[in-house]
């Protein structure tokens, strides 16, 4: 409890935490929707927000509120798959490259540099163009995971490189610890703040990319996500027709979600980082 109390002193954590809780309730709510959220023409079309439809209805004949709850859930599924799987790749590549060094390091970093130089967004588009119909939630997540690890592998590697030079590495090795136990027991806990913040960055990146892929019509448009919701709103000219409740819902939700995640991650990784904690207490 003490930890939470400390964290809540940071306004970024408090705001982020509360917003994330609200969004989480929306995700839960999506399981209690009054009708199947993929079906069209369930309610009167193009109604402005009212008491019966909190956020109005869209031109497809769906309630914008329920559509939004489902969209958040699906976008989060994509982002979490992408985040966790690309973390596994990034951690493996970063640790192996950083600890082994030499030729292994060069090859692995060569690959990740190659991925960094090519505009990933275009390669994603190229691949998605070919896969198109196959891009369900899980597959979109996997596709993003496959390309989204390069930068983070690099960051983790440089952290491991600096850890390897520290004295405790020698102490640990000399006292008979194996490489594996050294890496898992000593290095891993020290890189957790970094991994955590790269995870949140990757989630934000994945959500943004999913939106662009959806706008280009490259994911399955029948499954509501933040991206496809926006895509339908734009296709039906909701900006010109003044259906602000429809187009603003995914826009505002994305901003709220990402700002909340960001505030949450910045404050947590600062908290986990002992140097920053000292600064926060006020010592110089």
């Amino acid at each position, binding site marked *: 409890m003490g930890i939470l109390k400390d964290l809540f002193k940071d306004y*970024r954590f408090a705001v982020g935490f509360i917003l994330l809780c609200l969004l989480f309730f929306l995700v839960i709510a999506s399981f209690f929707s009054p009708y199947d959220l993929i079906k069209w023409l369930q309610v009167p079309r193009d109604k402005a927000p009212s008491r019966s439809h909190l956020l109005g209805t869209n031109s497809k004949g769906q309630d914008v509120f329920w559509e939004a709850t489902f969209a958040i859930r699906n976008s989060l599924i994509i982002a979490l798959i992408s985040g966790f799987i690309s973390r596994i790749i990034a951690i493996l590549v970063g640790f192996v490259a950083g600890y082994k060094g030499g030729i292994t390091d060069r090859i692995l970093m*060569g690959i990740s*540099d*190659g*991925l*960094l*130089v*090519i*505009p*990933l*967004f*275009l*390669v994603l*588009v*190229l*691949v998605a*163009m*070919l*896969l*198109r119909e196959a891009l369900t939630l899980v597959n979109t997540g996997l596709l993003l995971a496959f390309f989204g690890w390069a930068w983070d592998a690099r960051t983790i590697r440089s952290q491991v490189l600096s850890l390897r030079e520290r004295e405790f590495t020698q102490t640990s090795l000399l006292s008979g610890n194996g490489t594996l136990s050294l890496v898992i027991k000593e290095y891993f806990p020290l890189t957790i703040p970094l991994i955590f913040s790269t995870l949140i960055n990757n989630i*934000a990146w994945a*959500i*943004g*990319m999913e*939106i*662009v892929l959806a*706008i*280009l*019509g*490259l994911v399955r448009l029948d499954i509501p996500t933040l991206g496809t919701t*926006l895509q339908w709103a734009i296709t039906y000219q909701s*900006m010109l027709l003044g259906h*602000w409740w429809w*187009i*603003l819902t995914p*826009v505002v939700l*994305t*901003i709220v979600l*990402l*700002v909340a*995640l*960001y*505030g949450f991650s*910045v404050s947590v990784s600062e908290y986990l980082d002992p140097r920053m904690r000292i600064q926060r207490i006020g010592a110089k």
Partner: protein
Amino acid sequence: MRFFRDYLIPRLIQYIVVIFCGITAVFFIPRMTGQDPVLEIIAQIQSQGSQLDPTAVKSLMVTLKELYGLEGTLFEQYINMWKRVFTLDFGPSFFQFPTPVADLLRTYLPWTIGLFVTSTLLAWALGNILGGIAGYFSHKNWSKILDAIIMVIRPVPHYIFGVLVLILFAFVWQLFPAGGMMLGRRMVVNFKFILTILRYSFLPALTLVILGGASWFQQMKLLVQNVKREDFVQYAQTGGVKEKLIISRYVLRNAMLPQITQLALALGQVFSGVLIVEMVFSYPGVGLLLYRGVTRGDYNLVMGITILSILTITTSVLILDLFYPLFDPRIRHR
């Protein structure tokens, strides 16, 4: 002479290697999906309702394979692609058949480069200067407020921020056009023309500068907060050097260096951002071309755009690297 041997030549070699790896990756990655763009196109034509008899399909397949550079073995295709890269001939585009992809790119690329260079430089300069000053005065209230505002802007994706700017400035307050700038048949450079360009480029540039600036701001603020505590700054302060001089000469200059390296590393992502923003505002650049190409399944065009983007980004990084000695005296005097 040592400058050439120790700095220039390695950079040039790196440039060539990176282009080679990038384009090779672009060649192999789509092939790893196991999907055939030719079959895609035929399925698309058939789904649009046109009836094709088997012989027509067969001849169509042969033509398409040739147009896409997909005939022959994998190795032949690979060689073929390098030929395409060197001649900058990416075959005909599909959605504006038979205009060559190269012609389309030649029309649209200058607009993208213009937006890319201006907005990146502006974002970098503004973000770093503001971030530097905010970092130096990090204990002041205005710095904290600015930081909180940036916290909200920073994580917003390009597309979403673009849509928000578009709604606000083109629909709610109708200050700027919602896109749709036409490319003139012939460009007449006069005052009115320049004014039109500025009117249409303002919103995309604004989006890019704010989003890009926000991320430079945060990095710079952190850097400056660290540099501020260095001994030489404290020494200058005790020595009575004017604060303005300390900020500009002592702190900003030192913190700028890593930011130049960061800029070179981030250019790929920045360029992606430019393409995405162009789509939001229908700005007549490569991004819009990409949008049209993708929605019409134009594989040649997307391939051409990808390869050209790799060339653009790596060349920008090279130019940046060549300018680096101007900023870092340690390399100049080596």
